[in-house]
């Protein structure tokens, strides 16, 4: 399953996409530690798979929360993307 967390508002599209089918194959989940803002969480989805997602409290402000990290890594990149060896995470901006 590809989960798009985030939003579209007047300033653009801000989505973090996570391929949870790849997530289930990863035992270490290095993205959890890599995220400097700790907005990624581990949870059991509706189909009983252990996957990662963006915390509900963070989903509508990722443009701001991810700003510092993205300014370090550059557009389209972030610590979570670099940490995920299965390339399961993408950012839309």
């Amino acid at each position: 399953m590809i989960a798009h967390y985030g939003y579209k508002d007047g300033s653009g599209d801000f989505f973090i996409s996570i391929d949870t089918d790849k997530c289930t194959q990863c035992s270490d989940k290095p993205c959890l530690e890599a995220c400097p803002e700790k907005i990624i969480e581990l949870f059991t989805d509706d189909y009983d798979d252990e996957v990662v997602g963006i915390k509900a409290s963070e989903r509508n402000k990722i443009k701001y929360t991810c700003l510092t990290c993205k300014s370090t890594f550059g557009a389209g990149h972030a610590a979570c993307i670099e940490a995920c060896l299965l390339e399961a995470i993408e950012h839309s901006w």
Partner: protein
Amino acid sequence: MTEKNEFWRWEESRWKNPDLDWENAEVITLGVDVGSVSSQAVILCDGELFAYSNMRTGYDSSESALNAASWALEGTGLTLDDIHFKVGTGYGRVNVTFADRNITEIACHARGGNLMYGPTVRTILDMGGQDCKVIRCDERGKVVSFLMNDKCAAGTGRGIEVFTDLLGVPIGEVGQRSLRVEMEPEPVSSTCVVFAKSEAIGLLHAGWSTEKVLAAYCLATANRVVSLLERVGMVKDFAITGGIAKNVGVVSRIEKILGVSALEPKYDTQIAGAMGAALFAKALAEKKAKTG
């Protein structure tokens, strides 16, 4: 003092299947979807639709869940204790205190859409009261991909409600009246309902008819959700659920922009989430019976 009309008020409804007798059923399940604007309860007997209710959500989610369930049960002879498994979904799912489990509305809409529109449905657009969801699913109703936008009211039922009050048009007439224009106008702002309302007031002052303003707003709503559909990728068959699925002005414009026809719903488009929850409840009840 003049009476204030509630143009936004939509009709609450309930239905009971006259051909089903719950006493012959092996598994009776309940799905309750407590949304931001409306709450629904669906009762299934062996996976077949037995009864449902669709009503406005109040300020208390727990009470709304109970009210929806009670209304669906009313006159059936069934009580909550007769139900083998109950699943809560929607924004208020954690407040469905009598539920055995709660499941996200994303998964429930996919499962419910699969039953309501058939196994060929691959893309479901749920236009809810305060959010908009695009869900891609497989032939079994399992979610393949999803996107939810609940940051702003544009493209949601709440946005339409704002316009009904502004223009004094009953919500059930918005769609049809928006189609009574000779030429499609430019859409109003699709990024913010507050700005769209301000823009509409300006257009009314500039001499636009009510129908033309409605057309501009319905088009803006359609544009808004199509951009979300494009992010996830539209795959046929396509279906729309939620309250706005009843608005022909928005639906026909979405169909025109995408170049596809939405599947015809077999049931009330607002019960998809609760239907999915009841289907999950059936699977969980059967699993529970097997494992003890």
